[in-house]
C-alpha cells in the first residue's frame, strides 16, 4: 500500500526539485546579467578569465579538431568511394564539421576542460570563504567573480569552435588530398559550391554561442551553489560536466530541428 503513495510522491518531489532548480538558475542568470556592468567598466577582468578559460583550452581543441578531421576524412572517403564520388570528401567533412561536429564536440571538450575548472574554482572559493570575504568587503562576488567568467566563456567557445572547424577541415585536406590523392582544386571548389554561409556556417556559429551560454552558465551555477565541503565541490564538478554534456546534446537536437528542417 505504501508504495502506491510513495512512488507518485517521489516523482512529484523530483519534478518539484528540478523545476525549483531551473527557476533558481534563471534567476541566477538574470542576476549575472544585471551585475555585468563591472565587466564593461573593467574589461581586464574578462580578459584575465579569457586567458584561463579560452587560451588554456587551445591545445585540446586544436589537437582534437585535427584528429576528428583526419578520421572523418578517412571514413568518408571510404564510404564515398563506393559510390564513385571520393572527391566529395572535402564537402562532407566541411559540412559535418561546420554544421554539427564542430559546435558539439568543441562544446563537450570545453565543458570538460574549462567548465569543470570554473566549477571547481568557484566551489573552492566558496569553501574557503573567499566569496563571503568579498561580500564582507562590500564587493559583490557575482560581479567580481561570476560575471567575468561567464562572459569569458561566451567569448571563448565560439572562437574555439571556429579553430576546431579549421583544424578539422585541414585534417580532412591532409587525408583527402595529400594521402588519398583527391584533386586539390576539386576538393576546395566542391566544398565552396556546397557549403553555404548563412545556412551552414552562420547556423553553426549560432549553435556554438548557445552552447557557450549553456555550458558556462551550468559551470558557474554549480560552483556557486556547491555545498562548501570537499565532497560538495567534487560532486558539483561532476554534476556540472554531466548536466552540460546532456544540455549540449539536447539543445543541439532542438537547434538542428529548427535550423535545418525548418519546423
Amino acid at each position, binding site marked *: 500500500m505504501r508504495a502506491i503513495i510513495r512512488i507518485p510522491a517521489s516523482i512529484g518531489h523530483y519534478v518539484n526539485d528540478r523545476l525549483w532548480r531551473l527557476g533558481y538558475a534563471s534567476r541566477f542568470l538574470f542576476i549575472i546579467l544585471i551585475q555585468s556592468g563591472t565587466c564593461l567598466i573593467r574589461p581586464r577582468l574578462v*580578459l*584575465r578569465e*579569457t*586567458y584561463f578559460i*579560452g*587560451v588554456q583550452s*587551445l591545445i585540446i581543441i586544436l589537437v582534437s579538431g585535427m584528429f576528428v578531421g583526419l578520421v572523418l576524412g578517412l571514413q568518408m572517403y571510404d564510404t564515398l568511394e563506393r559510390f564513385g564520388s571520393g572527391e566529395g570528401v572535402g564537402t562532407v567533412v*566541411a559540412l559535418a564539421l*561546420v554544421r554539427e561536429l564542430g559546435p558539439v564536440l568543441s562544446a563537450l571538450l570545453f565543458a570538460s576542460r574549462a567548465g569543470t575548472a570554473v566549477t571547481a574554482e568557484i566551489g573552492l572559493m566558496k569553501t574557503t570563504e573567499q566569496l563571503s570575504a568579498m561580500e564582507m568587503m562590500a564587493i559583490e562576488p557575482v560581479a567580481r567573480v561570476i560575471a567575468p567568467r561567464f562572459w569569458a566563456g561566451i*567569448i*571563448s567557445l*565560439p*572562437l*574555439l569552435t*571556429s*579553430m576546431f*572547424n*579549421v583544424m578539422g*577541415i585541414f585534417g580532412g585536406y591532409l587525408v583527402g588530398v595529400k594521402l588519398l590523392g583527391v584533386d586539390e582544386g576539386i576538393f*576546395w571548389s566542391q*566544398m*565552396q*559550391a556546397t*557549403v*553555404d*554561409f548563412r*545556412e*551552414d*556556417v552562420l547556423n553553426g*556559429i549560432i549553435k556554438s554561442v548557445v552552447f557557450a551560454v549553456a555550458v558556462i552558465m551550468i559551470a558557474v551555477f554549480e560552483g556557486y551553489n556547491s555545498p562548501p565541503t570537499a565532497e560538495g565541490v567534487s560532486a558539483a564538478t561532476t554534476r556540472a560536466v554531466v548536466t552540460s554534456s546532456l544540455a549540449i546534446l539536447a539543445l543541439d537536437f532542438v537547434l538542428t530541428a529548427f535550423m535545418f528542417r525548418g519546423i
Partner: protein
Amino acid sequence: MNRTVMDIWVGIFVAIGIGATVFVALRVANLASSTSEATYQVTAEFSNIGGLKVRAPVKSAGVVVGRVTDITLDTQKYVAMVSMNLEQRYPFSQDTSASILTSGLLGEQYVGLESGAESENLTDGGKITLTSSALVLESLISEFLLDKASE
C-alpha cells in the same frame, strides 16, 4: 602570470579565433563570391516545379548566375511562381526561356536559363514567359505506357 604575457596570449587567441571564422566564411563557404554581387529579381511560372527548393542555383550554360529566392503557388491559375535573384552583370533578353533541370541522374534540381534573340533585356521585376516544367518520373512513365498501349 605576468600581465603583459597574459595580454599577448589573449590577443593571439582572439586573433586566431577571428581568423579561423573568416577562413571558414571565405575559403570554405566562399562568402565573397556568393553574396556581394548586386542582383535583380525576375519571376517565372511553372506548371510543375518537381523538387525545386528555395536557394537552388539558377544556371545558364552551366554557370551559376543567381539563386531561387521564393516559391509560391498562384491560386488564380494554380501554377508555381518562382522568384529568383540574378546577378546584375549577367543580362538576359526578354524572351529568355527557363526550365527546371536536374544535375546528374538523381541530383539537385536547378533552374536553367537560355537567352533568346530579342535586344530588350529583362529588368528588375521582369517576368520570364517561356518556361518548361520539371520532368516528373511518374508522368513520364505513364506517358510512355499510354504511348505503348495506343500503338
